[in-house]
């Protein structure tokens, strides 16, 4: 039997089913927006994340993955030591991110002057030239979202490892998944390479120490993304009864 309960985001809080249904019907009849948390269904039935087809969960051997028959999307995988690897990569990534922000990526020498490029300077230049919106976009792409991704992964891995309350981890991981395409460190790396080739003929270009830590950071984050299976994370982050 499933417990018949649900939570409501409105003022009436954790009420029992009958009261809540009545209130809900009242609100609905008045045409007001009703907001309800849908009923959690712990079971072995899962849905394909890509196309929504329903399957019965079956464990697969280590190193194997389950594929959707309809759309070919990966349902879930069983990876050896997945969480520990991701935790290690995330910690390395945070250190590399700090290093990258403290040192110059590139230096350009011309007429006895040297101009240095840091991650921060790349974002702030648009602001100085009157394009504040672009500057904010770059700040989000290059600093805010990558940092958010790293710290979310760290917190999620710690939550699963040490059986902490899952509430914060669930919300963070959800936001991280939704904002993932907006973190663009690897695209920026391609931009750096283009700039290096473009300027290489014209002036003396020096690769700064941050160039190498930045490259390593991108490898770390890409590896963490490739190794981590969201299905396993979500399966480990079951709602605890105490929250909401």
């Amino acid at each position, binding site marked *: *039997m499933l417990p*018949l309960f649900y939570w409501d985001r409105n003022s009436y809080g954790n009420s029992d*089913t009958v009261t809540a*249904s009545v209130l*809900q019907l009242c609100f*609905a009849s008045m*045409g*007001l*927006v*009703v*907001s*309800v*948390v*849908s*009923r*959690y*269904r712990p*079971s072995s*039935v899962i*849905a394909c994340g890509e*196309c*929504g087809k*329903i399957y019965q969960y079956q464990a697969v051997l280590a190193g194997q993955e389950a594929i959707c028959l309809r759309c*070919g999307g990966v349902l879930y995988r069983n990876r050896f030591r997945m969480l520990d690897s991701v935790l290690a990569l995330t910690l390395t990534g945070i250190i590399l991110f700090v290093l990258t922000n403290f040192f110059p990526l*590139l230096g*350009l020498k*011309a*007429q006895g*002057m040297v*101009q240095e490029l840091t991650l921060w*300077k*790349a974002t*702030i*230049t*648009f602001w100085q*030239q*009157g394009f504040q919106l672009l500057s904010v*976009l*770059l700040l989000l792409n290059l600093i805010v979202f990558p940092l958010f991704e790293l710290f979310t992964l760290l917190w999620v891995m710690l939550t699963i490892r040490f059986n902490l309350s899952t509430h914060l981890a*669930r*919300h963070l991981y*959800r936001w991280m998944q*939704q904002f993932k*395409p*907006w973190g*663009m460190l690897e*695209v920026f790396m391609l*931009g*750096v390479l*283009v*700039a290096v*080739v*473009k*300027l290489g*003929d014209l002036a003396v270009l020096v690769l700064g120490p941050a160039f190498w830590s930045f490259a390593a950071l991108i490898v770390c984050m890409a590896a963490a993304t490739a190794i981590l299976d*969201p*299905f396993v994370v*979500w399966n480990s*982050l*079951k709602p605890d009864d105490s929250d909401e």
Partner: protein
Amino acid sequence: MSNGSGSMPHDFLHCRVCGCLSHKPDTQYQSGKYDVLYCPRCGVKLKTGVNNSIEVTWALLIAAAILYIPANLMPVMSVYMLGSGQPDTIISGAMHLVEAGQWPLALLIFVASIVVPLLKLFSLGFLLVSIQRKSSWRQRDRVLLYRATEYVGRWSMVDVFVIAILAALVQFGNIVRVETNIGTLSFAAVVVLTMIAAHTLDEHLIWEVEDTDA
């Protein structure tokens, strides 16, 4: 009350973010047009009742298509050498690279900044039309097209980043300096809008045809 795995898939609410399956609050509950259901696991708003994905995506796509014109006609940056400035559009910038013999770079900029945004506009438009026609034509390939469109979109930002890097690095006062121009803003807007459009397009609608008679 509990109807386990034997129930019809239509009874489930499927969270697109965490993949969790849940039930509507109770069996008598009829979802109204304005009701908002939240996923019990990740807390995201579940899509129920009206699905306005098509309209929102069309709106974003049309806005992006309009901005694509100034993004290509207006200068994206100017190089000032010894006081005199030379504004460049994306295309003229790529042409300078070809003249300088750096054609692989020119090709990269051309593909990332001109071809990819244009392909995104066309493929999203095509997907929207085919969904609205409830077409069952090559659904699996259309999902692949959607995934490719979604994946490749962010790489168009490379041109904006190159301009940011050049503007930050090439600052030698009167000798040579790089200034950003308004074209960069509209180009970034095209990339952002098409990325949001790819996100708002509900790719599950591609399978809607099969679901109705299943």
